[in-house]
């Protein structure tokens, strides 16, 4: 309860303390910077402390592993890669400070980082101003395309919409009534806005959609779970579309299990619950609840098996799981390497120009391509939670789905197009025929 006060009240104090650690990190990286002249530096901007550390630490580790492997293969352009790790400590303004430090002090050639949309929004102006490259690996709400950012996570049409389509199908249970439950911030709100418009376009009535928001870290789900039960007793098949974020999921699923809400009665499809989040749960009562991602650890193919093997060896922990944003970094890193090789330079302008059109294999047996709108093509999978905390793929898209920066289901956004190759514009208005059209 009342957790927002804590951030409000302690903000300045926290920042002061963070400032001290930042200074320490800064001096450390300066020392390492001086010693290695002939390396290409790769910035890693993921929270290693604070609320988001739970998800982002893994991404830092996977980047270190990828860089390590690339160096074993002989580096890039004849130089070794060097990772520069900073800790923005789940503090959104600190993300911008750290990004600036990475680009202007450490002179990194590229940055892999951010998780929450608010952290990405906070670093955007920095990347624009200093003209560098950010690879963003997490599924997000779309409605954005920046010249300096490459989005390797899923846009809503690569995750949310296919998942809803699956639930409407016969195999998904022909769902007619929808609960859109999310944490109260930009990603769930925008995604739910898109989904609501989509569902209505599919003929779902207003009274068959229930939208519910909860604060970050919500832990008392009794009322909401019983509301969902009540909503589901209206005679039509009901499903929950969950954009509930990280930490709040464990108590949510525990309450679902304890109140006996089974997946066969009311399935829950989640967009932010992966192998990592399930690690803190006994998943036996949750079997059959769903998640939509572009990657699952349980997908069988040689590339994935090799990736999992080297991940377990790298972390020296046979129990570490892999997840979707890790695959996004894998794809993003390989695309960047290819683009640098193609441009024969790490200069941001050249690499940005070289990236669209680059193709690299993903871990699910296909080949992902960087598109002109700086999003990538990915397959979509719907998985069911198994008793062992892994997912069983029950549906997959036919072929790859192209990431769509601007949703076709929102008024104002459907006229926009992002194209950095021919139009050189992230928000070209097709009706007004000019760049800079605003989404409502």
């Amino acid at each position, binding site marked *: *309860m*009342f*957790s*927002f*006060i804590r951030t409000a*009240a*302690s903000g300045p104090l926290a920042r002061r*303390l963070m400032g001290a650690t930042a200074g320490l990190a800064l001096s450390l990286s300066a020392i390492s910077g001086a010693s290695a002249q002939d390396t290409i530096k790769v910035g890693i901007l993921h929270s*290693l*402390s*604070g*609320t988001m*550390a*739970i998800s982002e*630490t893994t991404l830092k580790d996977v980047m270190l592993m990828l860089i390590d492997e690339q160096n074993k293969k002989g580096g890039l352009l004849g130089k070794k890669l060097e990772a520069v790790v900073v800790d923005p400590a789940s503090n959104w303004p600190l993300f911008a400070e750290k990004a600036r430090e990475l680009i202007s002090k450490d002179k990194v050639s590229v940055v892999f980082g951010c998780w929450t949309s608010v952290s990405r929004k906070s670093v955007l102006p920095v990347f624009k101003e200093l003209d560098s490259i950010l690879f963003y690996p997490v599924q997000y709400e779309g409605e954005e395309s920046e010249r300096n950012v490459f989005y390797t996570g899923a846009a809503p049409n690569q995750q949310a919409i296919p998942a809803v389509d699956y639930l409407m199908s016969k*195999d*998904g*249970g022909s769902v007619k009534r929808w609960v859109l439950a999310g944490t*109260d911030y930009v990603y769930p709100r925008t995604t739910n806005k898109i989904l609501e418009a989509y569902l209505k376009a599919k003929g779902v009535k207003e009274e068959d959609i229930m939208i*519910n*928001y*909860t*604060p970050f*870290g*919500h*832990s*008392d789900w*009794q*009322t*909401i779970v*019983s*509301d969902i*039960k*009540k909503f589901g*007793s*209206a*005679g*039509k098949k009901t499903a929950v579309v969950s954009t509930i974020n990280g*930490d709040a999921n*464990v*108590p949510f699923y525990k*309450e679902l*299990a*304890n*109140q*006996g809400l089974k*997946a*066969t*009665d009311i*399935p829950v499809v989640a967009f932010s619950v992966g192998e*990592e989040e399930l*690690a*803190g*749960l*006994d998943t036996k*009562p949750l079997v*059959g609840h769903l998640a939509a991602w572009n990657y699952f650890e349980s997908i069988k193919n040689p590339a994935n098996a090799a990736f999992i093997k080297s991940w377990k060896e790298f972390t020296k922990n046979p129990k570490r799981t892999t997840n979707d944003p890790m695959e996004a970094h894998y794809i993003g890193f390989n695309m960047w390497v290819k683009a640098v090789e193609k441009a024969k330079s790490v200069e941001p302008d050249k690499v940005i120009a070289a990236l669209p059109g680059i193709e690299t294999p993903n871990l699910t047996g296909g080949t992902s391509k960087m598109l002109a709108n700086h999003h990538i093509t990915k397959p979509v999978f719907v998985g*069911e939670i*198994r008793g062992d905390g892994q997912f069983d793929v*029950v549906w997959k898209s036919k072929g790859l789905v192209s990431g769509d920066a601007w949703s076709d289901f929102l008024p104002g956004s459907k006229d926009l197009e992002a194209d950095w190759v021919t139009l050189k514009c992230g928000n070209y208005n097709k009706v007004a025929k000019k760049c800079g059209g605003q989404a409502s």
Partner: protein
Amino acid sequence: MPPPDFLLRYFRKVLAGACAMICTRLTLTRWLFGLLAAYVAAAALLIAMPHARAQSLDAALAHFTEDSFDDTDQGIQAVVASGSPRASAIIQALSDGRLAYDGDKKKIYIKTDAQVLDAETGQPVTPAPDNLDTVRLNNRLRQAVAAALGGLTLMSPDRAARLSAAQAVFKSRDEKVLPVVEAALAKEADAGIKTILAQTRAAILLGSDEATEPQKVEAVAAIAARGDQDALRILNDISADAPPAVTKAAQSAIKSIQNQLALWSAVQNAWYGLSLGSVLLLAAIGLAITFGVMGVINMAHGEMVMIGAYVTFAVQEMIRAYNPGLFDYSLAIALPLAFLVSALVGILIERTVIRFLYGRPLETLLATWGISLILQQAVRSLFGPTNREVGNPSWMSGAFELGGITITYNRLWIVVFTIAVFVALLGMLRFTRLGLEVRAVTQNRAMAASMGIRTARIDALTFGLGSGIAGIAGVALSQIDNVSPNLGQGYIIDSFMVVVFGGVGNLWGTLVGALTLGIANKFLEPYAGAVLAKIAILVFIILFIQKKPRGMFALKGRAVEA
């Protein structure tokens, strides 16, 4: 199809009867010849019968080797239709995820803990085949499996199996099982199961096109008698073009159920409020000691809760590794350990940091905030940043229905536990020597010191006590929340809120404060949503503190200034 040994017995009986009648009249040779012919016929049947059944079961099982949900669905129906005695074992294995197939040999096996059985014969297969894939299910199939299993076990001699079978067929409302349900209904002796079966029959009739109007009206009454959300779902599901008498009966039944449920929902809100209030109380009660009684603003209080939760995790890990049988006692074992560990950490903090800062609230606040960050990061480095799994012992899992509300065991036990902790703490402060000394020191430090009480020791012990209680709160909270390094942060502001609202220095105030906030929150939540409910509560507290700065139950006189 009757089993072959039964057939054999039947033939023998006929033969014996025939013998008794005929033997005397026919010659021995004729009789022997007859006997031979009968045996040949019986033997032929014996050979042919299992073969015919095996074929149909075999064909049914073949569907499972395709790894396609549609095929598996056909397989389930075919296995049920085969009427084989193996059917229920096969469907049960499928439901448990123990049914496996060998894609190359097109064979189906049932995996058990120790061995692999041939699904068709039930005989163990040696050597156990490797590279088996489990037959996969999705939600649609899981429902079909539950319905099939329900139909197969409705006549089971075991009461619990029949009960869960009845519940499963009630949920599936599959028209195909109607004859089975009616047969089971005629045989069933247990009143509870009989009611469910009757309701199942009614639910199936309501959805059926063949049922007559009076049958349907009767069915509405039977369903309405349930009076719960399942009944509501079925009644709402009646199509609009049903006969007017049926829809009318359904409408009035829906209305009365809704009225009933509205009443229950008030009870439910009260219970949820009580449950949230007890969680708040549990988190705040340790703080009521350190902040309320000692006046130390301890921002690291939440981390004491977190340490308690991690102690629970560590205890459960040990139990999982060394003695899984003790798992149901893991919380009881964790309680004293969590108290000790958190109390020791608390005493350490008090002796090394806080005692130099008495009377300087701002510095204490800053220092303890720093300590909280250090503790969080220490736990993060030690246990990793991800959530750790703390399991619910069996007696804390699940829920039971009380009238129209669902009460989950973990919440119920937390309410009980909170009351126990509160009473124990109250008793300790009131009746023990330490309690007396604590009260003496907090009321008048100088006087207590001149009476020979070592105030420094009491300070450390009081702080340890408050921290220890936060630790055992962590054991309870690990059952409903994440066990991650951030666990404590979620509770610290709530705890301060409760203590300040209830009145500093007063345990009863903390109790009333926690319950008031919990219940108010839960009554607001259905109308305002979770986010607005919290804001509303917050605004209320701000206004309240303006009016009564010392909270609801302010201590009068010198006590607070001490």
